[in-house]
């Protein structure tokens, strides 16, 4: 068994579970943290798949810029999502 597939499976499971948490979470700040962990897992996956170009653009955008934009917008609006 190729050992890379095992790590890919673990990281992909972490990413999927945290994507689910980020979608269903009411408090927006917690959702941002979950999506940061999800992007970490996907960055490790992309690195294991030998795609350093994508990792180099994925990490600054998903860990640096995207939470910043979300925090800016949460600060301008409400911090809790209303009842559906």
């Amino acid at each position, binding site marked *: 068994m190729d050992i890379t597939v095992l*790590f890919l499976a673990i990281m992909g499971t*972490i990413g999927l579970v945290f994507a689910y*948490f980020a979608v269903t979470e009411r408090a927006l*700040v917690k959702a941002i*943290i979950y999506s940061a962990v999800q992007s*970490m897992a996907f*960055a490790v996956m992309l*690195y*294991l798949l*030998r795609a350093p170009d994508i990792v180099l653009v994925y990490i600054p955008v998903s860990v640096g810029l995207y939470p910043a934009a979300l925090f800016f917008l949460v600060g301008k609006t409400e911090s809790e999502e209303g009842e559906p």
Partner: protein
Amino acid sequence: MTIPLVISLFIYTVSVLLLTYIVVRGPTVSDKVLSADVALYTSSVILAITGIIIGSEAMAICTIILVLWAYALDLYFSKYLERGELGEQ
């Protein structure tokens, strides 16, 4: 040389898994941010070990980028806590 590195890769993956449970459970929001931060640093070590095993020069710079931006989440969150809006003084 490769077998000890693979074993340590397993241990690091286990600690990332344990940390993600803390990210979900952590009683306060600060615990979540702290454990997410530690998970980012730990995954940077995973990247470094994989780069050593593969031995490809081109992929080494990814570790620097992940380490550089792991602490940005802390700063955004603490500024949000203290001021409410990130552009304020």
